[in-house]
Structure formats: C-alpha cells, structure tokens
C-alpha cells in the first residue's frame, strides 16, 4: 500500500479554478518553478462553465513554501480560486494505463490481479496487453508494485483528480 510516511506528508494536492485563457498554465507553472517546487502531476480540464478550467496539481515539498505558492497563485488575475485539499475533505481518483508483455504467464497473472484491483484489460494484441485502472493514488501504486514482476513496458498515469465532498466547492 502507501509508501513511506514522509513522502505522503510532503505530497500536496492543490485544486484551482482558473479563467480559460491562453497563458494561464504558464503563469501557474511559473509560481512553482520560481520557488524550485517540483510539480509531480498536473491535470487541466474544462469546468462546467466553459469560461473556466480546472487544474489539479500534485506537488512535493515543504508546507510553508506551498502556502506561499498558493497565496502567490491566488494573486494571478486569471485565478478564481486555489486551494489545497486533504484526503479527508475531498475524494481523489487517478487513472493509469499499463502495458505489459502478452506472454501466456502474464495474461493469467494480470487478469487475476486486475480483478482484485477492479482494473480492466482494454486492449490485447499479440505483443502486449494494456490494463486500465482507476482508483486512489495508493491503489494505483500498489497495483503497479505487484505488476512489476510481470514486467511493465510502459505506464501512463493521469495525475490526481480531486473533488470536494458535500456542498463545498472544489
């Protein structure tokens, strides 16, 4: 399951609602880059209102710097709001696609593991199988760790998506 505690503590999920305008992504990225803060994952998607976009950013680093980053990002003219979300107040999902060699041994092992993790084989060819998994970051990490012995050829992960629970706006 989850890796060491330290890593978890230092990984933050920030959700932003921004104006859907060119250049917004660069402005947001600059706020992180200037403070040498590494972005692990970033998802941009349209919001319900097409004038806005959603950005979900996963980043590692110390909380004080992150606090500065959120305050500075909030000052961007195109920023409607920026907020850090904890595992408690928001639900998290991530999607992964994994490509594995299509050997006979793999096929049965992968099918078994996939079932356990609610993953699906979405493509099979003579050379490779592609598995799709949706779940929490921890689920994805665990699935990946177990699949490693089958030899993962490629992996693509969507990055974390969050949504605030209940009435609260993401």
């Amino acid at each position, binding site marked *: 399951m989850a890796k060491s505690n330290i890593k978890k503590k230092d990984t933050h999920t920030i959700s932003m609602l*921004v*104006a859907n305008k*060119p*250049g917004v992504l*660069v*402005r947001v990225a*600059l706020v992180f880059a*200037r403070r040498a803060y590494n972005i692990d994952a970033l998802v941009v998607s349209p919001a319900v209102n097409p*004038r806005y976009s959603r950005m979900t950013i996963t980043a590692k680093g110390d909380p004080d710097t992150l*606090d*500065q980053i959120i*305050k*500075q990002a*909030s*000052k*961007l*003219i*195109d*920023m*409607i709001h920026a907020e850090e979300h904890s595992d408690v107040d928001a639900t998290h999902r991530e999607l992964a696609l994994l490509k594995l060699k299509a050997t006979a041994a793999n096929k049965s092992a992968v099918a078994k593991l996939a079932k356990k993790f609610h993953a699906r084989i979405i493509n099979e060819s003579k050379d490779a199988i592609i598995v799709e998994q949706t779940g929490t970051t921890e689920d994805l990490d665990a699935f990946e760790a177990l699949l490693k012995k089958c030899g993962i050829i490629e992996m693509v992960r969507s990055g974390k998506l969050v949504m605030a629970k209940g009435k609260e706006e993401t």
Partner: protein
Amino acid sequence: MIKKAKKKTSKKPASKKQLNGAEALVKCLENHGVEYIFGLPGGSVIPIFDALVGSKIKLILTRHEQGATHMADGYARATGKPGVALVTSGPGSTNAVTGIMTAHMDSVPMIVLTGQTISPMLGKDAFQEADISGISMPVVKHSYLVKKTNDLPRIVKEAFYITNTGRPGPVLIDLPKDITSGSFKGSLNPKMDIPGYSVPGKGNQKDIAKVAQLFKASKKPLLLIGHGAAIANAEHAVRALVEKLKVPVVNTLLGKGVFPESSPLNLGMLGMHGTAYANKALINCDLICSIGSRWDDRINGNNDEFCIGATKIHIDIDPAEIGKIVQPDVSVVGDARFVVEELLKLVEPQDTGKWLQEVDFYRKEFPLKYSDDEGLTAQKVIDELYQITKGKATVVTDVGQHQMWAAQFCLAEHGNKFISSGGAGTMGFGFPAAIGAQFGNPKDLVVAICGDGGFQMTLCELATAAIHKLPVKVIVIDNKYLGMVRQWQELFFGNRLSGVDLEGNPDFVKLAESYGIKGVHIDKVEDVHKKLTAALNHKGPVVIHAEVIKEGNVFPMVPAGKSAHHIIIEPPTTQLEKPTGST
C-alpha cells in the same frame, strides 16, 4: 538649389471614418486620462505612432526603451497615476524589461504597450519577433496578447483597473500589428471580464480591534512605514495615529516621508544603511507594527533574529505578504488608509514618555555624521541639497552609495517626494525617473542624485530633457568608482578591487553642454552652497558634476544576512567576515 516641396502631414481622418485598432487604442488611452506616452517607435508600432498624431496625448520620444519605462515609472510614483510606455517589438520590448521589473518590485502602476509581429507570424521567428508576454510574465502584475481588434477597449480598461488597484504593478499589452491596423467595430466602453480579480477592502474589524489591544499592552511600540502606506495615501491617517499614540516611527527607503522625517518622532530609515537610532529602536521595541512594508531582507537582515520578543503586527493589502518573511502575531489584510483610519478610532493615547526618552538617547548618542576635513564628500553635497531645499524638492535617486546617503540626509516630508528603485536596485533608474517625475509635476523642483556609474547607463536621456527644456536637475556624485561595490570589496574582500574603477569617465560638464544643457562643476567644500543654490535656481535642466573623495564609505552598515544587533556604526579597523545575506 532646388526648392524642396515641404511635405505636408496629412490631417487626421475625418471623424466619421471608421477607426482602426490603433486609433481605437489611442481613444481609449485618452479616455483614461493619459497625458503622456514615453516611447520609441519601430515597424510594429508605426500604426500606433500614426494614431498619436493629433491626439491630445503628448508623445515623449526617449533615446532608449529603458528610459521610457523608467520615465513612466517616475511619472507614476510622483503623481499616483499610471505611467504609459510604448515600444516596438523584439529588441524594443526586451529593452523595456528592466524598467518593467523595476516597477514590479516597487508596486508601481504602469501600462507597457509593446508592438508585436502580425498574428499569423506568431511563433515563426518573424523579424523582430520576441515572445515578450512570455519573457515578462514573472515581472508583471498581468499581461495580454491581443487577439482581436475589437477586444482592445476591454483590455485597456482592465489594464488600467488592474495596474492601479490593490497592490499596483505593471501591466503589459502585446499588440500584433494586424490587430492595431485592423478595422475596429466594437464598443469603446465595454464591460470588464476579470472574474478572478478582487481588491482587498477595508480590513477585518476584529483584526483591527486586536491590533488596538496590542498597542494598549505595549510600553515600547514602534511603527514601521513602508511604500504601501504611501501608495494608499495613508499620510493623514498615519500622522493622526502617530500623534495620538505618541509612537516613534521608522520608515523603509520607499516609505520615506509618509510621516514627516523632520519630526522628532521620526527616526528615519531602518535597515542595512539606516540610521543607528532607527536600528536601535528596532532592537529595543516591544511591539512593531508594519504598515505597508514587506519586511524585506534589506530591513530585517536575518528574519530568525528579527525583533525577537517583540509583538509583530502586519498591515498589508497583499495577503501573500503576510507571513512571507516574518510571522506576525496579528495581521490585517486591507488598504492601509482605511485600516489606519479604523485603528485610529480604537486606540487610546498612551504614555510613551520613557520610551521616547530612550529613543532620543539613541538619536543623540549615534548621530549621522561626516567630516569636511578630507575634502568634498558626497554626504556634504547631498546634505547641502537638503539644507537648501528642506524637503520641498522631489528627490529621485539612482542606486549605490549616493542613494543611501540621499536616504540618510534628504529628509522627506511627503510620501511621493523621495523616489528610488528600492526592490530592484536598478542602476540607470534615477535620471529618467526624474524626467518622468518632472513631466508629472512640472512646477516642482525635481533633483536626480546619481552616481557616475549609474548616470552613464541612461545619460542618453539628456537629449529628452534638453528638447523639452525640462527644469530637472541632475547631481552626478562622481567618486570615479562603482562605489557601493568598491565599499564591499574594501570591507569584506581584503580591499582587492575588481571591476570597480571607472577610469574613462567623460567630462560631465562638457557632456551636458554638448546637449545644450548647463553644466556646473563642484569640487570644493566652500563652493557647494553657492554653486548648488545657483544651479537649483537655473530655469532649465542642469547637470551638476560633483567630484567627491574617491573612497568614502556608507555607515552605519548592517552586513547582509545579519540582524540589526550587528550594526557597524564607525568605520571598522579590522577585516570583516564575508556577509552571508543575499546581496
């Protein structure tokens, strides 16, 4: 000789004629009350320069784009109105970047219009294409790359709103040439569309009440006044608060004058080259309340040791400043004027008599001083300027030793009377910024104090001053060195001088005269008063070349990275350790 037919400038197009983008742009600028545009043309902005023919906006042609931005900046700082610069694409726009960064660091409202290649050529390395909105992104409050001619009025309206509300800052508008030459069919007064932008208001009443409580509990309070207080026009409110509380005041370089520096309650500038008494007060206060300062490293030195044990209060319009450097006990996010006006209602007069006596002791014990024994010093020239003008002149400085001496000796009586590049420390700022300030306040006495190094970075603007017969005065403090750097090399690097000797300086008097500007040379203590008075009374521009001793050093000095406890008041006799602070 063949008689040359005089080329006629064609009249403005008849009023019914459809506007092009550039004409719509100029109309919008006029409607926003723009008096001056500082700029220099090039291919991509010819349509805009064309639209300026016949406009009531006065175009000031500068000799370099850096000068244009610093002029716009100086104009803005002196008047409180946004300055406007107009430059061409590519190198024109990159030349403007230093000026944009300078304005950004000091929260100055400024609109920078840059030309750009035509839209279909964007990103194709067209002639003089530079991605200026990309290059400038980290140093602007906001920027636009205009995609539709009809969007121009909305963008201009938003830009003027954004640049001078909340915490001000430069806004850049990048204008592809097809956009400014395209025909305009939109509205000149559209709605703004900036849902993400809001301006912090009057501050939270509960927080303000807490501040009042803390003042009540304090025996040794200190007010720290920064640029934010000047920007917010908090002068009256701050003065009333100081009078009511009888609290001593220190100010940052850019907060000079918000509370009159000639008042016995004002201890002058704090920080690296601040007065010893301001720094002593900082060490000994039990409460420090910052109004519009960002506690930067030039004033706090080392934030782990900053005012240990004192209660810290931070009033700022920018929420991102709260806790950025110093963690306050109480903070109020809001406009300094409103917050101080509210605070004024809640505080009660206090007996600070003992504390004021203590502070007064520091003032008497550690005065600023200089001597005339070794020859003419920069301090003498600058002090004499103050003695003659007594805070009535607008003093604009460049960056270096002379800047710190100006901060020490030219006391300011109002917030907009001392103009200096604080956050950026941009050499070359002083002279063009003074030109901008003079355009903004034509009746004022505006005096630039520059080093021989910095003046040479933008002296081409002598032409601009000469052509417009601006009464601006420039004092060039000539120590034949990049003095501030030489001082560090002397104090911290065993006096191994490297790259600081300014051999090859021109004759500044002749230089001025070659532009048709009056030049005055001063090199004797006994001449300073007479020659300076005469020069200041001269109607047109004057360059005052003050040849001073070469090796003067600025004291007091708190080495970079150290707290105010480590202040060096007298010239040290031993080698100092290398400073750990940033620069």
